[in-house]
């Protein structure tokens, strides 16, 4: 019971801090002081106090977009185990639901963008679906590989199953999976080699383009949903890449949160040292990630 409460509390309150840590890391690399760690929370509070402007050409789809995106992310966060504690919600086959919750939220983000009738946002939507349909197989291959290793179809078992012993036995495929998942993590969350979350340059924007017309609370919901998505995929990654469990519930939570913060720093470092890829190179990298995960599955199936 306490675990469920901690799970919900961490999932609800922690995600924006990740963005703060990433921002601070990037600032440190650039030699700046940077915004405070809690800046994303201040931004969200500011946005929620504002009023909204809705274009007259938009329909209910435009207003529903952010809400559905956020609710899909909130359901998804209930499906994944955090820090080696079982998820509050789990059943056999929930990995399919998990993957398609992201699909649903992406569908509504793009359709809300198309609803504005702006050709610019249409372009962003086209890019988003193109890249995500290349990123999705990676997620599926990785989850299926882990399902095969753990012989279960429920995310709770799949993601709490990896242990140091499994790393020693199937090191190569686990390493491939970690690589593939990290690339997916960056791609799905529009982080730097794929998309720059800070840029507002027309030619290179992907995700930012689609949310240009949202304002006030709706935009706050989108930002929070994006932070939550980073948190969810980061948690999946941490569960596989850093499978350390002490058995003591509270220490495990501490380890999990520390690992997430380290991951945020790692993302910040990647963003600082890498340039954004050219648009034509992105599919190549995504296909590469898919091949890595498919290769991992091949090694496990053999």
């Amino acid at each position, binding site marked *: 019971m306490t675990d469920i409460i901690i799970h919900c509390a961490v999932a609800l309150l922690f995600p924006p801090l990740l963005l703060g840590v990433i921002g601070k890391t990037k600032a440190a690399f650039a030699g700046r002081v940077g915004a405070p760690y809690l800046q994303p929370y201040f931004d969200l509070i500011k946005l929620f106090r504002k009023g909204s402007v809705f274009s007259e050409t938009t329909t209910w789809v435009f207003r529903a977009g952010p809400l559905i995106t956020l609710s899909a992310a909130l359901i998804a966060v209930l499906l994944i185990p955090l820090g080696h504690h079982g998820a509050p919600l789990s059943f056999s086959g929930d990995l399919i639901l998990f993957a398609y919750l992201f699909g649903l939220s992406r569908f509504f983000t793009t359709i809300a963008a198309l609803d504005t009738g702006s050709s610019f946002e249409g372009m962003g939507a086209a890019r988003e679906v193109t890249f995500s349909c290349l990123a999705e197989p990676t997620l599926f291959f990785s989850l299926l590989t882990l399902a095969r290793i753990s012989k279960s179809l429920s995310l709770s078992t799949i993601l709490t199953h990896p242990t140091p012993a499994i790393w020693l036995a199937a090191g190569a495929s686990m390493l491939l999976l970690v690589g593939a998942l990290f690339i997916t993590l960056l791609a799905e969350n529009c982080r730097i080699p794929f998309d720059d979350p800070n840029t507002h340059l027309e030619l290179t924007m992907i995700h930012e383009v689609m949310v240009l017309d949202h304002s006030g609370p709706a935009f706050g919901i989108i930002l929070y949903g994006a932070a939550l998505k980073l948190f969810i995929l980061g948690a999946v990654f941490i569960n596989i890449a850093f499978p350390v469990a002490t058995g003591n519930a509270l220490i495990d939570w501490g380890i999990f949160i520390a690992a997430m913060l380290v991951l945020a720093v790692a993302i910040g470092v990647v963003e600082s040292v890498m340039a954004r890829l050219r648009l034509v190179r992105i599919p190549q990298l995504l*296909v*590469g990630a898919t*091949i890595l995960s498919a290769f991992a599955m*091949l090694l496990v199936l053999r």
Partner: protein
Amino acid sequence: MSSFADQLLVLVMLINLIMLGTSRLMFSIRAVAVQGVILGVLPGLIHPFSGHLAGITAGIILAKGVAIPYFIGGAVRKAQIRREVEPFVGYVPTLLLGAIFTALAFVFAERLPLAPEHKDLLFVPASIATLLCGFLILTTRRKAISQVIGYLVMENGIFVFGLLLTEAMPVMVEAGALLDLLVGIFVMGIVINHISREFSSIDTSRLRALKEE
């Protein structure tokens, strides 16, 4: 130790895929050098130590890891080419084809009647996958240099297969094969330089028609 050898073979197969996906020639050459060094280390992991083994390891690392990349690198620098510009088949399709070939290699290796002690090792699938990837590079790229690299990768695949037989393979045969390879690469380097000097391009697809004086 054989599980560590398996991880190295996974690395060898990953290098195949990297080479299929990159357009930079120097990068490909370095990748093939790394692959050669890995192949040089491998025999030491699966066979007990002997003078014969040390000779093979040193020879392979010297030839595949140092000498051959050095020759090709020199040819690239002299011909002043940096990247393969327009392959016959694009990078993403060849990468996918490479992945499919690798998967097929695993399927095929399952069906081969292998000795029971080789059944669980990755050697046979890795060798077939490397062979096929090398073949893919050889057939889909335009530049003579890329084709030489493809040929090298193919040879690496054959070598991985030969690793299982190292005990039975006399040093002379091994040395002969390496020497052949070295001379082949050397000759190719000279040929490439001549092509680039004569025709200002080393696109082999233009070398099809005979020209009458």
